[in-house]
């Protein structure tokens, strides 16, 4: 017997799987087993119906004991499916699991060929390559790395809030970082939510205050992550906390400062109200804001000039704050460094910029609104206290709601935004309730596939809202006949009736689609994630790993992954929290040992490998001037191995000897 590794005889067991008829129908498995039996070092060679079944695995274990096997090769399906199964079986049989090699004769052979003889010959060649290779395998060790129990949640919309609370309730410490002065995200702006029409504030506010009060949650609003280093279980994150010019610990949220500001009336456009309302330089975004802490806008505050402190104002706010001493005009931004083991990204979405579709007249005609603006307009705590008063000072008697604005359109965004049909119907209902206007929905297809959604559509039909199937061509203000004078005219084909119509209305609502944030690419780079072509963060598998990313330990929740409604965002947030808990409660992660390492003696310190590593796992040891690969970050892609000019990088499981033997085996002519 060959002494390949110098320390022991190589005794190989070979198993070829029939996979029912999946393999056996195209490959003569018995012939393969017979052929392999005659190869050097092979002690046992068998075919079996289902190798992955319990009896199949037991067969391997039994043979290991009986024949003193020390190498196993299974020729079956893709290693993606069962490599783990067989490694465990081999380990249970008492061998190092890396003395195993898997050969794919299903996806690579039986499924893709039509000639049985040739497919059989190919299976033999593949098997032979595996036999040659496995002889060279070395025992490897699975390393365990501890997982830091704290979690970072980025983005405090409903998804981030739900994930943070789930984790906090299970006793984990959570940092929740939110860019805006308050958490709540888009949901905080809504009046009601479809399809049940429950009041958004009523269901969201309790969760927001729970976040604010929970002892396990550190809430950093008005903050952003600026840097992330490390790897699963051990991330080092830097968070920038923007100055609010108000000390969070000292502010009680009494808002005396706001009423005493030198500006007696609110004067500046209020972003929370989609610029429909006004606020003062010192403000709190909305009554239920969490944290209940005011902030000062240095762009408009008299005490600043273009953001720079001037001390020009007599500062009645400071006086009003009195002994609380919460206002601090000298506050600077702060950088906080934290360590966490897992991260949940829940940065949400932004709505489509309607300026990209000028044919709908937004900005040109004052009575054209975006859906978010209407959410504020019908909201009892909105800028008009729920009165639908148009920009031109009238109440609308007829309203057109245009669906799919910036969705399903190759000229803008190709995807369906999934929630617009439903929220358009919600707004139709609310507008009808508030104004009793005649309401037209213009849609391409009504997409109402959620629980209770079709029923909601039905309810709207019952309420007498018009549904016109047709994508609106344009919104104009020129009259064709006198009844159109002074109105906005929607020209559309009523595709179900097969006629072109001109419909004069007082108000137009644009149901804007959902799209990735403008800075999504930066966030993607920051957290080492991938994006789909449309710019939403990419999940590891669309069906089976929907909240995982390609970076271990980083999970996704909510609309940053794709447009979705609140129920789905919450479900996903729960799933992401559960995935994080799995890691935390396991306490450590196991690392595939197929990582690369640098043979220091041979490394010239040329640094060519460093920029090539897609996982930034390589650094230069400053003292030794040698490259160093962080095993925990290395994904075993092999890029550096191929690139190293001095050949001083070795990758476990892909050592030269292993790969060359495999190639030799493959190229050797197959007798028979």
């Amino acid at each position, binding site marked *: 017997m060959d002494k390949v590794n110098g320390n022991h005889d190589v005794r190989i067991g070979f198993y070829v799987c029939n996979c029912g008829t999946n393999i056996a129908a195209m490959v003569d498995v018995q012939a393969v087993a017979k052929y392999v039996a005659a190869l050097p070092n092979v002690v046992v060679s068998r075919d079996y119906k289902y190798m992955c079944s319990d009896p199949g695995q037991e067969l391997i274990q039994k043979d290991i004991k009986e024949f003193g096997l020390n190498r196993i090769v299974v020729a079956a399906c893709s290693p993606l499916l069962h490599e783990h199964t067989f490694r465990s079986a081999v380990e249970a049989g008492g061998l190092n699991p890396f003395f195993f090699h898997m050969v794919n004769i299903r996806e690579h052979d039986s499924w893709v060929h039509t000639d049985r003889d040739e497919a059989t010959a190919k299976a033999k060649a593949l098997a032979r390559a595996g036999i040659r290779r496995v002889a060279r395998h070395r025992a490897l060790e699975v390393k365990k790395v501890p997982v830091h129990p704290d979690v970072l949640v980025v983005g405090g919309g409903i998804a981030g809030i739900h994930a943070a609370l789930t984790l906090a309730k299970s006793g984990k410490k959570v940092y929740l970082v939110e860019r805006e002065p308050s958490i709540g995200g888009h949901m905080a702006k809504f009046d009601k939510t479809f399809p049940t029409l429950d009041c958004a504030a009523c269901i969201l506010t309790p969760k927001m205050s729970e976040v604010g009060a929970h002892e396990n949650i550190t809430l950093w609003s008005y903050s952003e992550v600026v840097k992330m280093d490390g790897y699963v279980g051990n991330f080092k994150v830097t968070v920038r906390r923007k100055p609010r010019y108000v000390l969070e610990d000292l502010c009680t949220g009494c808002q005396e400062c706001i009423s005493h500001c030198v500006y007696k009336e609110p004067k500046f456009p209020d972003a929370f109200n989609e610029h429909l309302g006004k606020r003062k330089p010192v403000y709190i975004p909305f009554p239920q804001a969490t944290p209940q802490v005011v902030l000062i806008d240095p762009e408009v505050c008299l005490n600043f000039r273009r953001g720079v402190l001037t001390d020009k104002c007599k500062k009645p706010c400071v006086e009003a704050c009195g002994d609380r001493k919460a206002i601090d005009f000298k506050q600077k931004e702060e950088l906080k460094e934290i360590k966490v083991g897992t991260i949940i990204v829940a940065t949400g979405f932004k709505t489509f910029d309607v300026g990209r579709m000028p*044919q709908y007249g937004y900005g040109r005609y004052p009575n054209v609104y975006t859906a978010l603006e209407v959410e504020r307009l019908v909201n009892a705590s909105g800028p008009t206290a729920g009165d639908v008063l148009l920009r031109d000072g009238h109440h609308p008697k007829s309203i057109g709601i245009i669906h799919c604005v910036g969705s399903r359109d190759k000229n803008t965004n190709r995807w369906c935004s999934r929630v617009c049909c439903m929220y358009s119907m919600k707004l139709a209902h609310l507008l009808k309730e508030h104004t009793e206007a005649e309401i037209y929905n213009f849609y391409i297809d009504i997409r109402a596939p959620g629980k209770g959604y079709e029923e909601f559509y039905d309810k709207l039909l019952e309420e007498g809202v018009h549904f016109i199937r047709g994508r609106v061509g344009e919104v104009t203000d*020129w*009259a064709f006949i006198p009844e159109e004078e002074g109105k906005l005219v929607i020209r559309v084909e009523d595709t179900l009736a097969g006629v072109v119509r001109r419909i004069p209305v007082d108000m137009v609502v644009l149901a804007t689609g959902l799209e990735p944030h403008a800075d999504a690419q930066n966030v993607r780079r920051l957290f080492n994630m991938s994006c789909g072509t449309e710019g939403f963060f990419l999940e590891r598998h669309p069906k089976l790993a929907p909240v995982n990313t390609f970076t271990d330990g980083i999970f996704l929740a909510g609309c940053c992954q794709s447009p979705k409604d609140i129920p789905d965002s919450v479900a996903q947030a729960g799933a992401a929290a559960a995935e994080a808990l799995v890691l935390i409660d396991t306490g450590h992660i196991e690392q595939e040992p197929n990582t690369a390492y640098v043979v220091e003696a041979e490394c010239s310190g040329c640094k060519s490998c460093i920029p090539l590593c897609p996982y930034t796992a390589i650094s230069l040891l400053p003292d030794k001037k040698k490259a160093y690969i962080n095993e925990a970050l290395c994904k075993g892609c092999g890029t550096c191995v191929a690139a190293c000019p001095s050949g001083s990088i070795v990758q476990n499981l892909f050592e030269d000897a292993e790969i060359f033997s495999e190639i030799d085996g493959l190229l050797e002519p197959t007798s028979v």
Partner: protein
Amino acid sequence: MKYSYFPGCSLKGTGRAYEESLLPVLKVLGVELEELDDWNCCGATAYMAVDEVKACVMASRNLAIAEKAGHKELLAPCSACYLVLNKTKHYLHESPVVEAVVQKALRQANLTYSGNTPVRHPLDLLVNNVGIEEIKKHVKHPLKGLKIAPYYGCQIVRPYATFDDQYNPTTMDRLLEAIGCTMVTYPLKTRCCGGSLTGTLPEPGLLCSYILLKEAITRGADVIATVCPLCQFNLDCYRDKMKGKWGHETIPDPRNKDARVPVGPHLDIPVVFFTQLIGLAFGLSEKELGLQRGFAPMRKPACAQRQSAAA
């Protein structure tokens, strides 16, 4: 810079006034033109309905002659020609099959086509090469107070919006503002005039043109400025028919908000080429600019305003 000039059939016929005003205006601005040697019909839209490939061959003959002439760019003032020449360029670029046929045909005339001659529109040239500031320098009689409905028509911004915005083009607005005019808000800037339907199917065709006229009037325009010989013809020459069909329709009285008046008499709003207006501001005579060729000549008040501004 010297440009090759492709007048196209209309500028020699019904749209003569366009050429008559364009040439002197460019001369004032020092832009030299050389009329394309033995140019042929561009292939225009009606031709495209019969045989697209042949239309392409016709258009490419012009492009190839322009290449041979050696000037870098080809000026095509008529919107239909501008579109057809550009469309042909796109088509040849996209379809190797059509290009092969075209090249073969061109060889019969010892011509080749390399695709390197940009086809330019006068608006583009005036705004982007000559420049608004330069044009302002030549204004002798600013047309102060003249209210214009700027009408671009469809084919210079659709489907290939190269030098101006497809929804809200502004090059002509900027040019005419530079010579003192005021633009009225005119949301129909790029709406179709009916094209050749005005002649073939008057009911729908004329309705398209009528809408454009009526809306310019209700928006308070004194004059409609156009860039296309066909648009100008449609808006200018069928007024009698439009009056017969729709003259009784009423519009809000421009002088009295609460009253309505029949639109008929108002339909005689002058429809001119933008180059005619620029020429007037440059101090060229009405005759030189072909203004007498319009069916509704620039009305006295408008011209009087011009003179009083000059005085």
